[in-house]
């Protein structure tokens, strides 16, 4: 169907105009609809573009004193800028201050105030046994200031080694 106004574009919406007691039906193309201030589903409802990557590009210079790459997964800040994804949990420590700024911009805050998580003790975990995994968990426990847990893991580790 052709647009009732410009007689050129394809009509994408049917506009019902109410004037006094009369009702008038118009078939409009997207352009004419827009000119009449009508937002079609097409124009109004386009999901917003995820501008997160852009935020990273524009506003995230490397903070001084941060390592060039994460010691656990070897990801760099350049990797993060390119993909918008961090390599692993340790990246949050490696690039902490850059991320803190970014998180403030994205969430308006950088501190988690929701539920707190306490990792299960290694003895309760069916699957954690190898020294590598324990060392990894020890490091994390110290970093997150879970010192009792850290002591437990250290004892376990001594037992294995």
């Amino acid at each position: 169907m052709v647009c009732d106004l410009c007689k050129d574009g394809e009509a994408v919406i049917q506009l019902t105009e109410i004037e006094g007691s009369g009702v008038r039906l118009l078939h409009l193309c997207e352009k004419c609809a827009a000119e009449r201030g009508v937002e079609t589903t097409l124009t109004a409802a386009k999901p917003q573009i995820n501008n997160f990557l852009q935020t990273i590009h524009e506003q995230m210079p490397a903070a001084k004193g941060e390592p060039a790459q994460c010691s656990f997964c070897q990801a760099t800040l350049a990797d993060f800028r390119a993909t918008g994804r961090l390599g692993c949990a340790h990246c949050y420590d490696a690039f902490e201050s850059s991320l803190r700024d970014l998180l403030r911009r994205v969430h308006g805050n950088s501190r988690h105030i929701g539920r707190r998580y306490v990792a299960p003790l290694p003895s309760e975990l069916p699957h954690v046994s190898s020294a590598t995994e324990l060392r990894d968990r020890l490091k994390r426990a110290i970093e997150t200031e879970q010192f009792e847990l850290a002591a437990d893991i250290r004892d376990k580790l001594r037992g294995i080694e």
Partner: protein
Amino acid sequence: MLDLSLLPDGGASWLDASGEHADIVISTRIRLARNLEGYAFTPRARDGERLRILTQVREAFASLRSIEDGVLVRVDELPPEDRLLLHERHLVSKELAGLNDQPVRTGAAVYLSRGVGIMVNEEDHLRLQALHSGFHVSDAFGVIERLDAELGNKVPYAFHNEFGYLTACPTNVGTGLRASVLIHLPGLVLTKEIGKVLAGLQQVGLTYRGMYGEGSEVVGNFFQISNQTTLGRSEGELLDYLVRVVRHVIEREEEARRVLLRDAGYIIEDKLWRAFGTLRYARSLSFEEAMNYLSGVRLAVGLKLISGLSVYTLNKLLIFSQLAHLGHTEGRALTESEANVARARYVRETLAAEAE
């Protein structure tokens, strides 16, 4: 071919239209993003790492008490049409199903039970989600909260003192919580109020998407409204806020419907009956056409212009008239034009059966 009847509820209980405001809010989804300690995040992990993750969580799933009769589906071992089927039924994301620009990842899997699913090796190692019919935010969250507590006791999550639950993308960090409602807003679209409402959402920290989440187009006046921020507010605050705003949007939608009926009654009525007529008799329907007419019929049912048609049937039509679902019924993959014919037949027969 994947047999969805093996799932405890066929993976479709969220369509049963049982919840509050079921004619306007189709479903409520809550998801938590979680990662395991000791591995790189999924996008950076190697195949072997992802398989180890799968082995580790698989053992944990088997001993979960909050999920009964769960079924683990190895998404990476499914043919493309079955992956699309799971995605169309809202059981896995586009990313997990390998339907984005990236192929499906080795180790991609989903553990499914009644209204609950755990995606493994999505962008995060674990995506716990509950999908409920209607507007049921706190019930859906309750289910996921219990599951999360239990699972977190069996596998160690990556958690940071300051940043909370750590996620591959910093937009999910903190609570890892995304709560979303799939909502039908034809009244606001027809009265041209929708632009204002959507702009308003963004100002208050919420966001909207199409029916299939990030990057999906809005079709049939179905919108997904969800929280945008995940950090700096507690889970309870994020949920309360979403509930308050969505209630307000529902009120605006109801008001818009009253205005439509009052000011343009016979035109609206004509338009909606025509939509119904097309669905009853058309011999070929594209997906987009079907969605738009179904939107009209759904509105007509909400306005009580059409009776004898259940919201459950309308929900089912939305999901089962999609490409992979039609192919599944026919027992083979369909071309687009074959699917259009199959879709028209399926819609026709379903509506005819309901009218009897």
